[in-house]
């Protein structure tokens, strides 16, 4: 218990620092790159003096550290700010140009926007990971158990093949074949669960090669461990050794992989896939925010993403240390 308490105390405090740093990096980045948000907020035809005045009134001309401090203060109270662009109803809106009438209250809250988009992304990510596991587990375990034999080759070929397919291209090909040609599934936008299937397949194709490789390597490595052979000579059946011990030990590197690499890949994949499929999730929200220079949304998504990554890493590491007590943290 003491261990778990110290673990979480330590990791949570580190995690908070990391998230704050990420927030700072993104925050700074967004304010040093060319592109003035006030032009977006107020529209192109606004006179320069009005631009400056409003920008100053909104605090956009304060030093970055001051702005960041104010922002983090709001985040700490659970307020992720309001969109520059989107209206109260959450619908995408063109930038208002009414200088006098501009008030942040007329814009959608970022938290609300994320809350609306998140379930869609979770559904897509869930289905994608499920598909990937469905493919990767049998192939990966078979490849690991029969290293050097045909299932191993199959694993190598499958992972090399899948990893060589750029997701943008796979997406287009799948839309072309499954939706446009065969008419089996709908593709663009979202009007029901069926709209998740093709995007999820694209995600799965992106994720599965890493899983196949990792699973087969982890399983094969554990078969090479002394305890495996020793267990069989001790009188335990091969099946017992694989089911009770090899998979348990293989879970440690796999958990780490899923924590460190997979979540990052998944997030990246979500962005691209949602963009291609006009799927109304977080990725779509963020990409349009970037193109619209809707900084509050970008910041919030970046913080959320890093928070999720940090949290998942923490949980994964905790699970790993629970499985393998030798691990330090």
């Amino acid at each position, binding site marked *: 218990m*003491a*261990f778990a*308490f*110290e673990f979480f*105390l330590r990791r949570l405090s580190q995690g908070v620092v990391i998230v704050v740093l990420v927030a700072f990096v993104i925050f700074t980045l967004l304010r040093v790159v060319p592109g003035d948000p006030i032009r977006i907020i107020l529209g192109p035809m606004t006179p320069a003096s009005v631009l400056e005045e409003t920008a100053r009134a909104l605090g956009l001309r304060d030093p970055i550290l001051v702005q960041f401090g104010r922002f983090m203060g709001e985040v700490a109270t659970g307020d992720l700010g309001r969109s520059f662009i989107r209206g109260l109803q959450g619908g995408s809106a063109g930038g208002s140009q009414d200088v006098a009438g501009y008030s942040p209250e007329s814009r959608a809250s970022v938290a609300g926007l994320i809350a609306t988009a998140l379930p869609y992304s979770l559904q897509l990510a869930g289905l994608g990971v499920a598909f990937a596991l469905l493919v990767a587990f049998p192939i990966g375990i078979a490849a690991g158990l029969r290293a050097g034999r045909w299932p191993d080759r199959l694993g190598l070929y499958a992972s090399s093949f899948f990893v060589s397919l750029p997701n943008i291209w796979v997406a287009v090909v799948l839309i072309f074949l499954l939706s446009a040609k065969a008419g089996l599934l709908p593709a663009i936008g979202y009007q029901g669960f069926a709209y998740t299937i093709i995007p999820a397949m694209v995600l799965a194709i992106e994720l599965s090669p890493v899983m196949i490789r990792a699973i087969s390597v982890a399983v094969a490595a554990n078969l090479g*461990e*002394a*305890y495996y*052979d*020793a*267990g*069989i*000579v*001790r*009188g*335990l*059946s*091969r099946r*017992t050794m694989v089911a*009770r*011990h090899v998979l*348990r*030990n293989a879970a*440690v590197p796999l958990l780490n992989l899923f924590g460190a690499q997979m979540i990052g890949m998944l997030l990246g994949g979500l962005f691209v896939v949602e963009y291609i499929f006009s799927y109304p999730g977080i990725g779509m929200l963020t990409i349009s925010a970037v193109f619209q220079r809707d900084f509050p949304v970008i910041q919030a998504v970046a913080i959320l993403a890093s928070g999720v990554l940090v949290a998942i890493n923490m949980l994964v590491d905790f699970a790993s240390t629970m*499985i*393998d*007590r*030798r691990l*330090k943290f």
Partner: protein
Amino acid sequence: MALGSPPVPRPEAPLMEVRGLSVAVQTASGPRPVLEGVSLTVAPRAVLGIIGESGSGKTVLSRALVNWIRPPLAVTAGTVRYGGEDLLALPEARMAALRGREIAYIGANPTSALDPTVPVGHQLVEKLCAVLPGTARRDARARVVATLDAVRIPSPAKRFEEYPFQFSGGMMQRALIVDALVSNPRLLIADNITQPLDVTVAAQILRLLRELQKEFATAVVFISSALGIVSEIADDVIVLDRGRVVEERPTGALLRSPEHAYTRELIAKVPRIWSGAARPPPPADTDVVLDVRDVERTYEVRDRSAIFATRRVRAVRGVSFTVRRGENFAIIGESGCGKSTLSRLLSCLEAPDRGQILFQGTDIATLGGRDLLALRRRFQLLLQDPYNAIAAHSAIGATIAEPLRIHGLVPRRHLRARVAEVMAEVGLAPALYDQLPAGLSAGQRQRVNIARALVLEPEMLILDETLSALDQVEQAKLLDLFERLQTRRGISYVYISHDLAMVRRVSARIAVMYLGRIVELSGNHALFARASHPYTRALLSAVPTVEDKPYPTATYLLEGEPPDPIDIPPGCSFRTRCPFAFGRCATDDPALLATGPDGVGRACHRDADDLPAVVPPAAGQGGGARQAEGAEAP
């Protein structure tokens, strides 16, 4: 005692018969034989020893006995008959039914034999339930805890829930013996089970195995590369040389009158500590070059059971000694005694927390930059592992030349010639200059290592287990080399080792370490012939030899394991295992009291005369052995 005891009568049919067994390894250039036409017979309840040097195929043989030959190895001929069946022809399912039930196997590496992520007890229960179907888990658990207790594993109920990495090697090996015998098998194959263990622990394991073997009436095939160990347990011994059985005799007969030339060679190679050959150098009487004064080193480790807490590992606790010019000084002790830490301190890789290390009067901890570099030139350390001590990616010549480059001692154009000289001196072929070390043998690697140190022409060499990975012949050659260098250059050596036989051969004075301190420091003869500390005696009693020892194993056998250096008990740190401990030992920590010149002394409350009398060694010892003086009376 197996030695000299009459063979066990064996009226019954043999338990296992191996006939004409040949195993080959598949290599790129075709099959190469590993075992050729091996035949042997295992009688019920008997202990059959198999002795062979590394590479003789004894591990392959042990695995063949449980039909555990995996590619690239393959059985090319022969049978292993057990209970009327040829195991090698059995289907995998039948074989699986025999393994662990009727035929048990214990390997050389106890710490990696169990799943590192599951508590030890649970794995023993799992095995028990697997081999005895129908056992209730609760019963199985009770039985495992009981047997753990029976093999003297302390607080077994707590240990049941601990993980393999929390077990020491000796404890793990005991647990695995429990694991093997819990199903009451008819045959136990024990492959080199004492190899990774310290001598005192190995002696315990050996005794335990012998007891259990008697109790369970199990036949044992005991495989080892140490004749001294096999001779202590086996009824009959098979000698294996390069895959062939060269001799098979009852143990006593084999030792007394070996018939085959190889057997004789093998017996001759067993180091003698008390009998014969050793001609240790006399203690030097020159100026002191190294003066270690009350050195202490403590590490902090994180404590998992408390919040933000650390625990202090006291690795070296107040060690003092001196080394004279041209002297051979040795530090011996078992794993965890602090000798590795001491070597790091001596080589100036770490600074002591307290105390001083003076090299020719200069405290090396205070040196830095150029001075430290100059010191390093005169003061070299040779490391224990010849495989890791040289970088795999540099050519041999470059590795040896590196110190010269760093110290800028030799002009670039003379570099090669200088390196070649040193290579010749240590016996490395000049052709190796541009080779990578990948193909080198352990001996060759150690020579590269030595050459690299010698190229700087140091005044003192610290040899940290330098020779322990080498076989006897190779070891002897290098010791000769060191001796010649010493004569020529007056180098001082500090040997840090667990190998008593080697220390016996080369060093003038010996310090014995236990739990971070020196418990006894003595001249060579005095230490071996008249050891005055109970731990030294225990250590000497546990050495596997083929000689008669002055310290009977039964008298000095230690119980348990060395305590954790984190929780060093108050009082004498050895008292928890000491057969002679008394009241005062629990409260007062004895200091190392000098009883002779050059720091000779012991740290014990017992008077040396209180200890059991020393059995005089069989072979006479030359004079000059310094009689250890008794410690002061309490």
